[in-house]
């Protein structure tokens, strides 16, 4: 996984600052380093204002990093643009065009790559009238058109910023199925952000947890879950020398999420955390030390 050829997205010490230099500039992202192998479905998770949208816009080449480098499909984001699909959070479309015209525009803008059948099928599955103007569509219907545009482009990397936010549960499940089918059939790498973790569990196999403009956790979800244990036991049980992400005592009971660095005390009851439990524990505890693949590799040696 160290060769660049197999990577869909790589960030090295990436930072992005907004605002003028002399007027208290704000860093939206700072010192972001991670790697994402091709073919993964990656969840970008974090609280509001964590820097998720900034990160996706940097990967799409719409923003330039203030420091560090972003590598997309082995090249710089601008050069990779024809092979990347990006759907911004507000799903920008031309309101005066009809659905059919929007798809035709997609075909014209992406010569040689356009898969008209896919675009038309996604739109038709939502019962959208091709003659309807984008202006007249609901938020969820607009999301569907935006996803149809992005998927019909047959991107190698698909960047989706809060793709499911406007959708009802049925459309959400169906469109997530469409995305997964795309990944299964074409090996598309998908990166999608959300602050609803439960909606990503099961669909994503890679997690990028961002908090305070920094990468808190990065890695395969299975590995991350296996590296953490939920424990419960008597309050006086010592958790040394394990890394404690979160610990709470209620009366005589101790419950904690730990990253063990060896065998745990026999007296503790242990269970595997769910992805949501893991993410929430880290978000509730901004000081908890994170892990990145680099540390995994070091730990493995």
């Amino acid at each position, binding site marked *: 996984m160290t060769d660049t050829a197999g990577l869909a997205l790589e960030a090295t010490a990436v930072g992005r600052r907004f605002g003028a230099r002399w007027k208290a500039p704000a860093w939206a992202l700072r010192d972001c380093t991670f790697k994402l192998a091709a073919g993964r479905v990656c969840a970008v998770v974090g609280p509001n204002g964590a820097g998720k949208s900034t990160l996706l816009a940097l990967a799409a080449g719409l923003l330039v990093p203030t420091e560090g480098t972003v590598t997309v499909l082995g090249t710089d984001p601008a050069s990779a643009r024809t092979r990347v699909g990006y759907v911004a959070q507000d799903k920008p479309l031309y309101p005066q065009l009809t659905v059919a015209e929007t798809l035709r525009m997609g075909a014209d803008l992406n010569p040689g790559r356009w898969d008209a059948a896919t675009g038309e099928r996604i739109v038709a599955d939502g019962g959208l009238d091709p003659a309807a103007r984008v202006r007249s569509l609901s938020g969820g219907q607009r999301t569907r058109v935006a996803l149809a545009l992005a998927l019909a482009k047959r991107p190698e990397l698909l960047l989706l910023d809060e793709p499911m936010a406007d959708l009802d549960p049925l459309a959400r499940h169906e469109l997530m*199925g469409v995305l*997964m089918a795309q990944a*299964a059939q074409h090996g598309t790498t998908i990166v999608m952000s959300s602050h609803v973790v439960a909606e990503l569990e099961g669909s994503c196999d890679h997690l990028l947890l961002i908090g305070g403009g920094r990468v808190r956790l990065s890695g395969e979800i299975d590995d991350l879950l*296996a590296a953490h244990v939920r424990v419960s036991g008597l309050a006086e049980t010592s958790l040394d020398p394990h890394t404690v992400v979160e610990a709470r005592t209620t009366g005589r009971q101790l419950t904690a999420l730990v990253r063990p660095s060896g065998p745990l005390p026999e007296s503790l009851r*242990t269970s595997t955390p769910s992805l949501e439990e893991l993410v929430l524990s880290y978000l509730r505890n901004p000081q908890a030390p994170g892990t990145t693949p680099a540390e995994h590799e070091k730990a493995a040696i």
Partner: protein
Amino acid sequence: MVEYRIDRRSGVATYVQIVQQTKQALRLGLLEPGDKLPTAREVVEATAINPNTVLKAYRELEREGLVEARRGLGTFVRRSLGTATPAESPLHGELDAWASKAREAGLDREDVAALFTAVLEKHFTDKHSLGDVS
């Protein structure tokens, strides 16, 4: 053909659910040798789960000799599963007797379930548990 139902709140890993449901279908005769399993694409389109999860489940079934992948064609059932524990088996009888005893001892349904689960976990620790990692 088999259709998978994924319960995300069950606490059972998704790939394990697919393995279990496939075996269940084999036991019930819903799947027979020569039958084709749905493609990863078909499964993920219906369930919205990650494609790698389906592939992992199919690899596990293949490792157990239940199915085989034929390149470019799909994954096919190799052999069926007999009913694991028929109602008249000694194991069933012992468990039945144990359950009556538990009831006589004053345990209610939840007590019995908790006890059974604890023992089950002790004897069938899954391979992801920490003991093996560290």
